[in-house]
C-alpha cells in the first residue's frame, strides 16, 4: 500500500478496499519505525491525523466529493499549522505553536488531506543539503551517508522512503527541485504568485514559492490543483484562473519545442548526469518533441545575484525574531540590546547568521547601489534571457543539479561550494518562472533529476511533459531497497 501514488490511493479509498484510517495508520507506523535513520520529520501529528482520517472516512460514506479525501500528506515545517509546532527548522521557533493555518494548509485540508506531520528542513529554508536544520541533517533514503538535498530535504526523504505519499515544500532557489532530484521524486515549483505565501514563513519574499513533492507528475497535478489560486491574504498571489491540470496531462507532445541552454552543460556537470539528460531528450523526441539549442547568457550571474537579493530580503524578514512576542528568548537579558543580540545570536544557526549579515551589508549605506540595485538590474537581464528563449521554444530542459547527492558534511565547511549546487535552479526563482524536476536516471545508486522550465503559468505544460515522460520511463517507480517493504 505504501508504495502507491495518490492517484492509486484515491481509487483504493473510493472502492473501499482500505479506509483512510487504516492508510493513515500504515504511514504513521512506517514513520515510527523507519524515520530514525532518516530524521525526515520534526513533528508527527498522530492524534490530529487519526481523528482527521476518521472524519474523512465518515465523509466518504456521505459521498463527500473533496478531491483528495482521506489522503495522508506531510507539510514542510515552514508552513504554519494551527495548534501544531511550526519550527522552520530553527531553535528560534522550537517553542512556536502557530495560532493559525497557512492558506495552503487550509486549502489542502479542505481538499480532504490528512496531515501526518511536519517535515525537517534547512533552518529558515537556507541551505541545499538539510544540514543547517536545528534538528539535525536529513539522510537520503537511497544512501543514509548522503544528503537528501535541501531545503525541503525532509519532505523529499519522507516521500522517497514511502513514509508519506506526498509532501509540500518551498522553493526559493531550488529547494523543491533539488531534493526531489536527489531523492528520485517529481517536484514542482510553480510560477511566483500561483500559490499563496500566506502562512509560509518567509525567507526571501520575492523568490519564495510553495509546491508539491510526489512520486509522479500526476500526483503533483492533483496537489497543485488544491494549492493554487489567488488569496486575499497575499496581495502578491495572482488572480489568473487555475486550469484543470489533470485534463492537460495526456496532451500530445507532437511538435513540442524544447530548448537546450548551452550554459547548463558546461564545466562542473557530472558526465553521467549529462548522459541522463541526453537520454531523456531521446525519449521526448520519440514522442514528437523537437530540440533546439538556446542561450541563457547571464546564467553565470544567477548565483551571485541571488546571494545579494535573497540575503537582503531575509535580513529584513528575520528581524521579527527578537525574543519579544514569540519564539526563543535568551536567559536573563541585561538590557534591551542584550535581549535582541543574544536571543538572535543563540536562536539562529550559523548559515542564517551569515545570510543576515550579508543581507545587512548589501542594504547598508554606501553599498546599496553597488550590490542591491545592481543585483536587481542583473535580475532583469536574467529574466530577459528567459523571455527571449520562450519566444523560440515552449519549454527549457536541462539537469536539475550538476551531480547526484553528496556526502553529509562534504560541503558544510565552504558555504560558497554549497551555494553552487543550485546553479541550474536558482535563475528560475529570480525570473519567477515555473519549473519541475523529474527522475531521469541514476548515477550508481543515486537518482538524478531532469529539470523542465516553463513560461509563466505553464505549470500544466510541465506536468503534461513529465507525465508523458513517465508513461515511457520507470525511473519514478524506483524505490530505495531499505524502504520498499
Amino acid at each position: 500500500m505504501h508504495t502507491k501514488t495518490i492517484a492509486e490511493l484515491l481509487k483504493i479509498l473510493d472502492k473501499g478496499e482500505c479506509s483512510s484510517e487504516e492508510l493513515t495508520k500504515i504511514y504513521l507506523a512506517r514513520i515510527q519505525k523507519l524515520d530514525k535513520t532518516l530524521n525526515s520529520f520534526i513533528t508527527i501529528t498522530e492524534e490530529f491525523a487519526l481523528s482527521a482520517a476518521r472524519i474523512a472516512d465518515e465523509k466518504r460514506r456521505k459521498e463527500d466529493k473533496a478531491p483528495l479525501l482521506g489522503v495522508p500528506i506531510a507539510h514542510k515545517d515552514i508552513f504554519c499549522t494551527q495548534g501544531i509546532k511550526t519550527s522552520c527548522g530553527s531553535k528560534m521557533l522550537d517553542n512556536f505553536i502557530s495560532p493559525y493555518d497557512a492558506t495552503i494548509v487550509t486549502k489542502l485540508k479542505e481538499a480532504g488531506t490528512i496531515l501526518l506531520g511536519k517535515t525537517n528542513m534547512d533552518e529558515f529554508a537556507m541551505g541545499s543539503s538539510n544540514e543547517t536544520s536545528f534538528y539535525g541533517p536529513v539522510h537520503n533514503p537511497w544512501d543514509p551517508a548522503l544528503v537528501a538535498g535541501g531545503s525541503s530535504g525532509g519532505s523529499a526523504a519522507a516521500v522517497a522512503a514511502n513514509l508519506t505519499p506526498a509532501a509540500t515544500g518551498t522553493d526559493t532557489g531550488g529547494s523543491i527541485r533539488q531534493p526531489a532530484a536527489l531523492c528520485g521524486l517529481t517536484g514542482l515549483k510553480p510560477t511566483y504568485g500561483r500559490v499563496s505565501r500566506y502562512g509560509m514563513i518567509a525567507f526571501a519574499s520575492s523568490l519564495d514559492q510553495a509546491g508539491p513533492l510526489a512520486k509522479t507528475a500526476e500526483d503533483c497535478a492533483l496537489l497543485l490543483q488544491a494549492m493554487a489560486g489567488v488569496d486575499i491574504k497575499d496581495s502578491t498571489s495572482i488572480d489568473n484562473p487555475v486550469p484543470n491540470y489533470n485534463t492537460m496531462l495526456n496532451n500530445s507532445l507532437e511538435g513540442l519545442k524544447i530548448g537546450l541552454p548551452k550554459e547548463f552543460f558546461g564545466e562542473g556537470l557530472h558526465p553521467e548526469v549529462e548522459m541522463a539528460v541526453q537520454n531523456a531528450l531521446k525519449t521526448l523526441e520519440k514522442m514528437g518533441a523537437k530540440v533546439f539549442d538556446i542561450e541563457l547568457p547571464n546564467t553565470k550571474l544567477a548565483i551571485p545575484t541571488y546571494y545579494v537579493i535573497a540575503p537582503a530580503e531575509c535580513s529584513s524578514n528575520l528581524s521579527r525574531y527578537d525574543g519579544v512576542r514569540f519564539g526563543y528568548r535568551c536567559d536573563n537579558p541585561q538590557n534591551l540590546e542584550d535581549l535582541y543580540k543574544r536571543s538572535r545570536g543563540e536562536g539562529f544557526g550559523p548559515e542564517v547568521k551569515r545570510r543576515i549579515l550579508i543581507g545587512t551589508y548589501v542594504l547598508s549605506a554606501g553599498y546599496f547601489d553597488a550590490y542591491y540595485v545592481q543585483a536587481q538590474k542583473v535580475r532583469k537581464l536574467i529574466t530577459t534571457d528567459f523571455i527571449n528563449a520562450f519566444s523560440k521554444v515552449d519549454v527549457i530542459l536541462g539537469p536539475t543539479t550538476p551531480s547526484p547527492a553528496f556526502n553529509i558534511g562534504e560541503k558544510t565547511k565552504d558555504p560558497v561550494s554549497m551555494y553552487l549546487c543550485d546553479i541550474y535552479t536558482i535563475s528560475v526563482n529570480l525570473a519567477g518562472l515555473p519549473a519541475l524536476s523529474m527522475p531521469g536516471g541514476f548515477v550508481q545508486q543515486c537518482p538524478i533529476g531532469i529539470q523542465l522550465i516553463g513560461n509563466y503559468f505553464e505549470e500544466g505544460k510541465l506536468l503534461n511533459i513529465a507525465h508523458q515522460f513517465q508513461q515511457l520511463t520507470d525511473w519514478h517507480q524506483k524505490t530505495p531497497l531499505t524502504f520498499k517493504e
Partner: protein
Amino acid sequence: MNTSWETVIGLEVHVQLITKSKLFSGAATAFGAEPNSQACAIDLGLPGVLPVLNETALKMAIKFGLSIGASIAPKSVFARKNYFYPDLPKGYQISQYEFPIVSGGSLSFTLEDNTTKQIRITRAHLEEDAGKSLHEDFHGFSGIDLNRAGIPLLEIVSEPELRSAKEAVAYLKTLHALIRYLEISDGNMQEGSFRCDANVSVRPSHQTKLGTRAEIKNVNSFRFVERAINYEIERQIDILENGGTVIQETRLYDANKDETRSLRAKEQANDYRYFPDPDLLPIIVSADLIKEIRKTLPELPREKSERFERDYGLSAYDANVLTATKELADFFEQTVQASYQSEPKLCANWVMVDLLGALNKTNLDITESPISPERLGGLIRRIHDKTISGKIAKTIFEKLLCEKEDVDTIIEKQGLKQVTDTTAIEALIDEVIAKNPHQVADYKSGKDKLFGFFVGQVMKASQGKANPEQVNEILKHKLGP
C-alpha cells in the same frame, strides 16, 4: 558683533487617518482599547503573515494630495525602513521612501497681520504607525502595547520655508483644518492623531546656505510647537553667538521645563537600509481613480473663506476666523440661514464675538454649543425685524446659554418685546422731559452732549425695550434745535 539671524523651519507632520481597519491588516483602530486587544497576528508580525493595503487609506492620501494641488504618483512603492525597537514588531516599518504617493503642492495661510504666505509641500507618504512602550515599572521591564501598530499615517513634509515659530503654528493650524475638512483624520492632538516634528536651524540673514538643524520630536499642541521652536531658536543663536557649533541631533521638548533637550545618544548612526518591500507590489493609480476622488473633494478652507467674503460681505479676517474649522463654518452658515439671510455680518459678529467668547469661558467646542444655529439665527432675526434691541438681545443670549427655550418664547414670557409704538415712546419722553427741567434748559443753551443723557433716561424708563432709533428721532423733535 551684531549679526541678525534668520530662522529656517521645516515641518514633518504625522496624521493618523480615520480608517476603520489598519493600513495592512483587518484589525480595528479605535482609540483607548484594552492593551493589545486590537493587535492581530499581522500587526504582531507573526511568522508567515503578509500585509495587504487598505484601499481607503490610499484614497485618503490621494484626496489630501489633490487638495494641495500636488501630483499623485501614477506608480508609488512601499519600502521597508529597518531598525530595532520594541514598539516596532517586524523590525521594520512599512513606509514610502523613493517613490511617495504625493509630491509637490503647497499650502497657503494668513498671518495675524493679514498677509498671506505660501509654503511648498515636499511630499506626503503613507506609512504604518508603531506601538507604544509603557514605562510604568514592571520590575525593570517596560510593557509594550501594539494596538497602535499598523494604524495608517500620512506623513506630510514641508519645504524649509517657514521663518518663525508663528508661521509654523499658522501653517500647522491651516494643515490641521484641512485634514479635518477632508475628513481623513480627526486631528485629535491629545490622542496623537496629529503629531509634529520640527526641523529648526538658524543662519546669518544674508547667508543662503542652511545652518545645521536640530529635529524637535513629537510636539503635540500648537502652543508647545511655538514655545519649543522659540526655545530652540534662542538656544541655537546663543551657541552661534558664543562661537559654538550646532550639532545635528534629535531633541525632545519638555513642556514642564519649557526647554528642548538632546534625545539621541542611543544610536550613533542610523542606517535604515530602506529597500522596496517585496511583499507589496507597486501601487498604480489610474487617471480614473484620481477623477473619482477629485469629485469627493469638499469646499476647502481657502475657497470657503473667499466665498464668505464674496457672498456675505465679510472682511478677510472674519472670513478666515469663521472657516478655521469646518464645524464653525457650518455653524455660521446655518445661523445665517436661520436668521433668514437678514444680516450675515451681524451673524458673523454674534458667532465670533458672543458665542465663541462664551464657549471659550466654558471650554466648549463649537460642536458642543448650548445654543444651536437655529436659536442664534432666531435671535438675530428678532434684532433685524426690530422686535428687540441689540441690548436686549445680549440679555436673551445669556438666557439662551442656560435655558432650552427658543427666542420668541423668552421675549414673550419676559415681555422683552421692543416698544415701537410712537405714542408710548412719546409718553415716556414727555415724562423724562418733565422730570428733568434743568437738563432741558442746559441742553437748550447749547450743551449738546446732554442728548445722550436723555436717551439713556428714556431707555431706562422703558426697561431697555424702547426702539433706540425711534427714541432718538422723537427726542430730537421734542427737544427742538
